[in-house]
């Protein structure tokens, strides 16, 4: 067995928060951490948890903050957490868009206007229509997301729509153009789109297949590219269980790098199938 190649930690620019733990109001068939209404593997983070991490991050000169879950807006502290974060730096929330009620959107708009830093929302869609979307995300979800997007448009917040490659054809130029047109149709005249790779872990393992043994990174592969471009060279993930190397590997015990941010500023062995996907697809978790 060969040793996993090491990615350096160059600078902690990006800090992720598993702010809703693994709790979600839906259970997507491709979710790489199998978030669901009953998955309590990682607990929700409290405002106090986040404030403690923000203080650590400030000392380390972190540049930007990302919030994911599960569904971040299931966390009742989410807006307060965002307010605290936006006093310190730019924030992005990854959401399924189902809980974007008018009053939540109005508050988000207020936070957007008041902060000198950027606030971004990323709303996930799967597929070009109700049928393909709900096949992955569950019956009735498309309609709820559409309501959420209308509420965002009503307050003038322009989200990034993210779509996984489960939406067949979205990576092609035509697929992209079609999707941008779809987003325009939702009421956003400056459509923003980000295409995401799928990771063959969690629920996705069952939907398609698990990683094969050959899907591992070698030192030779890493030497041929720019290791600095990997997210784990400049980011870390905070969950209720500690600090992990990245947002993808939070169910891998060995990807937990420590209790404090400072002690995780060291190289990491890229031993996992998901590391192969990040490298081969050039995945950037950031927007």
């Amino acid at each position, binding site marked *: 067995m060969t040793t996993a190649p090491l990615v350096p930690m160059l600078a902690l620019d990006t800090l992720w928060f598993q702010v809703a733990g693994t709790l979600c109001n839906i259970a997507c068939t491709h979710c790489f951490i199998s978030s669901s209404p009953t998955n309590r593997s990682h607990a929700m983070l409290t405002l106090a948890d986040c404030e403690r991490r923000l203080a650590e991050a400030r000392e380390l000169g*972190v540049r930007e903050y990302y919030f994911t879950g599960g569904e971040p807006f299931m966390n009742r502290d989410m807006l307060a957490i965002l307010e605290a974060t936006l006093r310190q730096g730019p924030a992005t929330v990854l959401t399924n868009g189902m809980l974007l009620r008018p009053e939540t959107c109005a508050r988000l708009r207020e936070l957007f206007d008041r902060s000198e830093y950027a606030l971004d929302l990323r709303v996930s869609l799967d597929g070009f229509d109700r049928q393909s979307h709900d096949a992955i995300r569950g019956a009735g979800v498309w309609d709820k997301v559409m309501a959420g997007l209308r509420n965002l448009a009503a307050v003038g917040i322009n989200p990034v729509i993210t779509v996984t490659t489960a939406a067949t054809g979205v990576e092609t130029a035509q697929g992209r153009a079609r999707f941008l047109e779809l987003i325009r149709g939702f009421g956003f005249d*400056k459509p923003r789109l980000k295409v995401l790779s799928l990771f063959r872990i969690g629920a996705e393992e069952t939907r398609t297949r698990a990683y094969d043994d050959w899907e591992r990174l070698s030192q030779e592969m890493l030497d041929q590219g720019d290791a600095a471009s990997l997210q784990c060279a400049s980011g870390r993930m905070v969950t209720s269980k500690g600090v992990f190397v990245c947002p993808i590997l939070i169910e891998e015990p060995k990807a937990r790098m420590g209790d404090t941010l400072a002690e995780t500023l060291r190289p990491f062995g890229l031993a996992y199938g998901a590391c192969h996907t990040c490298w081969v697809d050039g995945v950037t978790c950031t927007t």
Partner: protein
Amino acid sequence: MHDLTRIAFLGGIYSNYWSLCAALDDIARRGVDATYFLGDLGAFGPHPDRVPELLIERGIPGIQGNYEESLSTGAQDCHCGYTDPRDNHYAQISYDYTFANTRDELKRWMGTLPRHIRFTAGDRRFLLVHGSPRKINEFLWRSTSPEPFLERLCREHEADVIVCTHTGLHWHKALRGDRHVINAGVIGRPANDGRTNVWYAIVTVRGSAVDVEFVPLAYDHERLAAEMRAERLPQEFVETVMTGWWTTCLEVLPSKERAAGRW
């Protein structure tokens, strides 16, 4: 009593010969101790030889941007750092035009430019970079560059004042300990604010006190637009020159900066 030093900084010029002429006249009128350019002499505008020729003729010092790095090494694209396909499409049109119309001798000169310039003014250690101290094409936007992060850059790169460009939008943040990060903006195209003028920066230093002035600069933008049309550069670029609103390379903008523009 400290001496007073005034320094002018020209961000990306993007082959905008007419704004460069206007800027040099304006700087001469105001009087400064030194003028520096911060890279990206080409892109966007027409006749890319004219800007480097004028800078060489006037003996103005400066650093490489990603454009000079790419042109001087024969790279296939500008390494602007875009990730969106539409952004890259328009960036490639600019780069191919600039590459084809820049003399080899000037490309070689671009290869001799330094990546960074350091000097001390008053008691402040200046560091001039194109994108950021760590990467030639890193985007330092106002809304995504919080103070703790900028303080780290100053600390790690042993600078009191970092001056950069690359994003196209000017801003200044004063940090703890009389440290500063200044994005000088660009004189190549307007600042996506519906105005046709461009911007450069004049920094005044006295001891450890640093004062930053962003100078709005009118120039003959209609003449530039006419030349761009004659060179068959994209109508979208001409529209930006004429309206002051960016029409391309928009996806890279953070939400705050994007919301401020028309497109």
